[in-house]
């Protein structure tokens, strides 16, 4: 429970809280980026170096930018007019509180938690590479496939339908 651990934990939680509560979407995105870097720091704390850097690369580097782009593309950069929350937000808050208490309660008095902290595992890039290439080679291939599929899918969905759009527009009922 080193002070640094507490600080990063606090920073991530703060970032997450802001990400969820700020009115301006861009600020949320940035707060989210802060939360992600906080999480990356936590990973480093837990001696998962490679994952930490990957976290920064993937989340902070790519997804944050992606989300920001999406925000711009949907022109929701400016702060919205009236309330930011959906109609049934009370229930949402209640359920999430319930979820947290339940998880917390489960964590706190579950018997499976080991008391002492085992020595820091050595997760060098070499070990990770070996594991990836031997034990987890199939998931790796599949992940490659999934990513390409997702990329193609995303491109198609987000493609600006020029011709059909105009037709559907005309024929459409909007």
């Amino acid at each position, binding site marked *: 429970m080193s002070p640094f651990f507490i600080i990063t934990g606090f920073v991530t939680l703060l970032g997450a809280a802001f990400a969820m509560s700020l009115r301006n979407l861009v600020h949320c995105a940035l707060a989210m980026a802060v939360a992600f870097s906080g999480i990356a720091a936590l990973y480093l704390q837990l001696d998962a170096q490679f994952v930490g850097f990957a976290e920064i690369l993937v989340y902070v580097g790519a997804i944050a930018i992606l989300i920001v782009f999406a925000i711009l593309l949907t022109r929701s950069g400016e702060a919205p007019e009236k309330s930011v929350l*959906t109609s049934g937000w009370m229930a949402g808050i209640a*359920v*999430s509180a319930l*979820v947290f208490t*339940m998880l917390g309660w*489960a964590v706190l008095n*579950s018997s499976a938690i080991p008391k002492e902290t085992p020595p820091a595992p050595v997760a060098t890039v070499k070990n990770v590479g070996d594991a990836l290439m031997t034990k987890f080679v199939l998931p790796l291939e599949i992940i490659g496939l999934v990513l390409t599929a997702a990329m193609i899918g995303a491109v198609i969905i987000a493609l600006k339908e020029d011709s059909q759009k105009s037709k559907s527009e005309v024929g459409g009922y909007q």
Partner: protein
Amino acid sequence: MIWIVKNLWLIPALPLFAAGIIAVNKQPARKLAATLAIGSMALGFLLSLCAFSATLGHHGEGAFREVFSFNWIQFGGQWMDIGWVLDPLTAIMLVMVTFVGMLIFIFSVGYMAHDENFMRFFCFLALFASGMLGVVIANNLFLFFVSWEIVGLTSYLLIGFWYHKPSAAAAAKKAFITTRIGDLGLLLGMVWLYAQTGTLNFYTPEHTGCLETAALNTMLAAPPVAGFAVVTAIGLLIFLGAVGKSGQVPLHVWLPDAMEGPTPVSALIHAATMVAAGVFLVARVYPLMSIGGIIGAHGVPVTTSLTVITWVGAITAIFAASIAVAQNDIKRILAYSTVSQLGYMMMGLGVGGVAVGMFHLITHAFFKALLFLGSGSVIHGCHEEQDVRKMGGLKKYMPVTFAVYAVGMLALAGFPLFFSGFWSKDEILHSAHNWPVSHIPFLLGCTGALFTAFYMTRQVALVFFGSYRGHEDRSAHGHTAPDHSHSSEFHSHDPHESPAVMTVPLIILAGFAILLGFVGTPAWPWFDGYLTGEEFKLDFSKLAEPGTLGLMVASAAIVFTGLGLGWFLYGKRQRKTVAEKDVLEAAQPFIYKLLENKYFIDEIYEATVIRFNAFAARLCDFADQWIFGSAVLLVKYVTVGLAWLYRLTDEYFVNLGFDTGCEALREGGGGLSKLHTGRVQTYLRIIGVALVALIIFLIWGRKA
């Protein structure tokens, strides 16, 4: 296998064929019908003569017997084959039936000339002839039974020929039903016989027939059933058929009533042939009857079935004879005389064996046919008048009829030496005399002979002597029911002689009535030898033997006393008026009344059998109505109840349950669909709650 045996079937087939054509014929071609019928009988007679000649000349080495049978129907794996046999018994009957039939056909041409149903009459007659001939030639009890039924059917049709007369219809029905009761016995016997021997053929080339020794021995060996030996039981059952058909005591009631039919019918069927069929049946299955018993005097076997037959025959003889004495209808007298003579024949068979019975049958056939036809021409002459009290003095009007009628009367009564009746009756009495079992049948036979002579002289005296009593009451109370549809106005009021076509057959029959006697005299027992195939030779000394001579003198005496008594009571003091009381009635009113009403047998039957029948009918009706009816009702109510139950369950449980179930489902579905608002957040919330539930479950699950 000579040709005649193979073509024996032609004899019954020809009349059948004739009957067919007559029946099919649309417009009433009387001449065609008559020629066809008579022609077929003539042809049949010729063929019969050929068959008869084939069977002659077999003295010494047993009777001639040729069998021809073919596979008829197949049931199960077995072939049922039927066929015909030619032996002396068949030959003699064939000749008799065809000859007598032909004569009666000729007679009925004249008799039925005025009747518009001429075609139908001849069709039935031809059909009857074919049935009778079928009975005669049958080598298979089944074929015998089929023809027997045809004969029964035609007798019903012919008795009820004038069906518009209620009494005729009733008489036909009565005849049919009573014979049917007898036939039932015959059927049971037949089935049992088949069961026992496995075949119904009387004789087969391989000697496996049911009347041959092999089959008879197996039957003998069979265990007795209900106290009777199998053989006697079957014999008695078959005899029951004969009783029904030949009108023996318990089942004789239909014969007198059968006189409702036209006279040729009575002559042919109820005198010569059909009633003789019963006797012929017993003669045919005689080996069955005579097996197993001890051999009495003169080689005549004595078995229980033969004793039963004898007793029944004797009782019937005396019983019918006594009734005949007190009858006033000319045909009814003859009918009862036929019944009594049949009794004699049965007794002859029982005590004397086949030859004795058959000889009396043949002779009786001729003179009884003669008497009936005679009475027919009398009735024809007296304009359909049947009551003897309204006749009298017909000697003057119908000399020919009177002459032949007298011959027939004397033959029937058994006038010694010249008439066939004397010889055949004497044979019977002779054998009855020698019957080891008991003497009573002999005594009954003699009294019967006395009564026969008495009532015949009474009848002749009342009909032919004295003055004609027909005119008196014609005007008094007119015609009862019109016998014929045609009016009787164009008739002259006096009785008239019948035309030649009717008198010629009478004369021929009279000739035979006389001549036939000599065939079976003790001196020259040709008939006996012919039937049994034994050796015999002409030997007048036989007549002089003490036994036969004494018996002949005794019977002659009985006949003379009967004749004299009859003449004394009726011949000398002729009755003057119709309404006058009968002499006997005056003497013994009570007995006369008893006899006239036929011992009230009909009434007794009426009281017992008919009532029982009615009661049974009512019982069945009651049962049908209440028990079965109620059962049906019950079933109805049960089904209705069940249907109601089904509807109920269907309505309330299934439908209701189903509907409520569907309703609940729909509501549930509706509720659930409300859940799907399309708002993503609600889904997430639900997932959150689900997550919580999962966690709880996992933790508690782990703890438990």
